[in-house]
């Protein structure tokens, strides 16, 4: 089980008259095993949404619920994959992946079985004893994803996980994530400002306004994907060529462009 709910969530940074309202009345329900991406202009507060589910930030008003219970602190039931990987530089690949399992006090045998399957899942078997700085950015992010998956979390929180990767590595990682998500579906909250990425990966895409961020529109991608059989295409570029894909992408682009001050993406 792993559902996420935002109920009338506001977030204000700073206090009193100097306070800046980052999020305004966010309402969003993510069902168990659903993959939802949030897209929005820079500074719209999409990362803040994720950080509140992770327990790194508290809502100023309203509530953030995971499985119906309010979030109070970070924990291994809500694994996070960070944009800048956040691997421990002094730990090997194996040690990075194993830390969360040690914290759960699992016996050694069980731990090494779980680590082995996570390594296999992310094609990391040949880099078990490497240190993060010896790996490419793509490999480092594989380790971070393995570190999250190995915990078998109720929800997976991904904060622009491919934002720091080069374009080609990014495509490979997107394809792998789709493979993971379709074969072993779990609840995912995915933050990105790349529109194609969101449409390609997610079941639903939530579009946010610029600051103070509000949810402007939620699109059901999954219905289109299943109707148009996107998953029959193995390669990302073939999916991105489909008329139905282009249509959705253009719709989101237009919606984002309406936001005044929208420059990047």
């Amino acid at each position, binding site marked *: 089980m792993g559902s996420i709910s935002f109920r009338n969530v506001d977030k204000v940074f700073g206090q009193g008259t100097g306070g800046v309202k980052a999020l305004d009345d966010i309402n969003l329900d993510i069902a168990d095993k659903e993959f939802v991406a949030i897209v929005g202009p820079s500074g719209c507060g999409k990362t803040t949404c994720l950080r509140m589910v992770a327990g790194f930030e508290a809502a100023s008003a309203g509530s953030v619920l995971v499985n119906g219970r309010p979030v109070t602190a970070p924990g291994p039931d809500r694994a996070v994959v960070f944009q800048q990987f*956040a691997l421990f*530089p002094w730990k090997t690949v194996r040690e990075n992946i194993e830390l969360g399992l040690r*914290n759960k006090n699992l016996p050694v045998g069980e731990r090494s079985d779980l680590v082995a399957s996570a390594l296999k899942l992310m094609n990391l078997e040949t880099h078990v004893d490497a240190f993060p700085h010896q790996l490419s950015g793509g490999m480092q992010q594989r380790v971070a994803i393995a570190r999250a998956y190995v915990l078998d979390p109720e929800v997976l929180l991904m904060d622009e996980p491919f934002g720091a990767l080069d374009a080609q590595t990014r495509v490979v990682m997107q394809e792998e994530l789709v493979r993971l998500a379709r074969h072993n579906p779990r609840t995912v909250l995915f933050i990105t400002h790349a529109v194609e990425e969101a449409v390609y990966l997610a079941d639903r895409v939530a579009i946010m306004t610029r600051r103070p961020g509000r949810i402007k529109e939620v699109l059901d991608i999954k219905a289109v994907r299943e109707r148009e059989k996107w998953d029959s295409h193995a390669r990302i570029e073939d999916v991105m060529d489909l008329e139905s894909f282009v249509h959705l992408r253009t719709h989101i682009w237009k919606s984002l462009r309406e936001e005044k001050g929208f420059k990047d993406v």
Partner: protein
Amino acid sequence: MASRPLGLGETLLLGLAGLSSFIGLWSFLSLSGIVPAQFLPGPLDVASRFWTLLTAPFAGATLPAHLASSFQRYAYGVLLAAMIGIPLGLLMGFFRLLDDIVTPIFDGLRFIAPIAWVPFAALWFGTGVGGPIMIIFAGAFPPCLINAYRGARFVEPRLVEAARMLGTPSSRMILEVLLPAAVPSIIAGLRVSAGLGWQSLVGAELIVAAAGVGFMMVQAQGSVQTPTVMAGMIAIGLVGMLIDVLLRQGEGWLRRRRGLES
């Protein structure tokens, strides 16, 4: 003025030039009689005295023996400073409350020069083993504490968040996240500590009644044997340089192993 980087040969040459002009000026001042020999012994007198002291005892021991007992005292002082300063610094970096309690006291204490502790070191810990060690400790402690604290306090926030997300308990957070993150800062602090501890040596040995380079120098001063005093100064300088070079090597090795540049 813009300058191109110098090669190793040129750097060595410049160093030698500096050293030889220093010795030249020193020789001129003492040999010409401008400064009387009692006030400033000549380089040759000092060198020959240094040589003699290597084998002939003065104030109860040879120079190497004095150095050995100084070094032992010094090692205890610095070790004690590291053993208390590093864990305390890490804990202060993690527990805000401890930080708020300790920092005001420490900020005042750290400006008191080690030598100012001499009377109390002698009173509290005696002139045998304890007193001198306390003075060296007073010199070596602040950098150990400050650097461990800063290393732990300013660890990359993402790493702490990642550890918390993985359910890491406090003890493991300190030992496996804050400590390794602080290692480069701690090593840099240890280097400063080692230097300051060694500098505090003479002050520490003012109150020693048996052996040590500082003790030897104080005895020589009493009988106006200026070449012996200066031989002691040179010994302290050389050993200090050696300690620094070794620690620098250790620091470089550690940083390379960690994948940090230089």
